[in-house]
């Protein structure tokens, strides 16, 4: 029930110096903090780390199948002709657009169907430390799901996993992506 208020206070635009960088700094943390709150909640809801990883992956998938539309609408990339082109678009356009970082694409398999994205810094884990009793937690599992879901919407079935994780003591974060097969156009993919 709203209290009836007598006075209306006018709001004026702030004339703070460096307002834009001030905004930008805040903004990056909103996603990181929200993600942290989500992982914390999931750790409370589920008994073991494997379950949490699975849930994060599932949620990532649901986000990915929608994010791809946002991505295609905002970037001007056309259809990729092969998996190498896909890798470049993911690293140089998608990661840059959404996370502000550009991973390097390396470790191609001889068949050209598997590669690694190496992230020097992972924005999701700013200020995060894993407690000792969560050694099996793959904190950034959401990312795997997002990539998998997004690519499924452009007819590619891929397997995505973390090969290295700075939170678990490695020097870099490495995401390994493997092409499995092309998906037929008429298979609808619903939410899991």
């Amino acid at each position: 029930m709203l209290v009836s208020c007598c006075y209306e206070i006018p709001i004026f635009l702030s004339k703070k110096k460096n307002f834009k960088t001030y905004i930008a700094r805040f903004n990056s943390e909103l996603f990181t903090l929200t993600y942290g709150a989500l992982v914390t909640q999931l750790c409370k809801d589920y008994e073991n780390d494997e379950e949490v990883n699975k849930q994060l992956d599932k949620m990532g998938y649901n986000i990915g199948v929608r994010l791809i539309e946002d991505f295609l609408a905002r970037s001007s990339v056309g259809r990729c002709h092969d998996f190498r082109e896909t890798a470049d678009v993911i690293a140089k356009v998608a990661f840059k657009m959404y996370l502000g970082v550009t991973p390097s694409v390396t470790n191609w398999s001889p068949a050209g169907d598997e590669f690694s994205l190496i992230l020097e810094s992972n924005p999701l884990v700013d200020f995060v430390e894993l407690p000792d009793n969560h050694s099996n937690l793959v904190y950034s599992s959401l990312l795997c799901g997002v990539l998998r879901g997004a690519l499924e919407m452009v007819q590619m079935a891929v397997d995505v996993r973390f090969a290295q994780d700075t939170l678990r003591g490695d020097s870099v974060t490495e995401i390994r992506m493997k092409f499995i097969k092309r998906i037929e156009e008429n298979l609808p993919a619903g939410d899991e």
Partner: protein
Amino acid sequence: MADNALFEFLHMEIVAHVYKEQATREDIDKERVTCVSTLELMGFRVGQGLIERFTKDCPTFKDDLDIMKFLCKDLWSTIFKKQIDNLRTNHQGTYVLQDNKFALLTQFSSGKQYLEEAPKYLAFSCGLIRGALSNLGLESVVTAEVSLMPSCKFQVVIQKL
């Protein structure tokens, strides 16, 4: 730095997840209340965290009204890309913040459609406001009301200890 779209997608998925989780558990009566409080608590932690990061360049606030103006201008702009459109107060600790085009509701409808779903998507933001105010020194109770999407009003009642 993360794009705002990512936050919006994440938020939608979090709401969907919390409700799906509760639906699989036995207590259907408590369902709605628990979901809202879970979301509100998550928002609270995020709100607190945002203000913690900010303390480096923290200006000093003269009074409660100054804090509320900061919330409406600076904080709202950084989180939702626009300022609060209208701030009202009765000068006795109650503030009403009106956002005519609330970022987390614009995707749903403009009008009355899906009105009953709106509270689910406002719980996190209520918690965010409460968390931010808490770290700025004000304990409060925050509720939200929607009568016409995507406009909504947040009511903040400052708790005097």
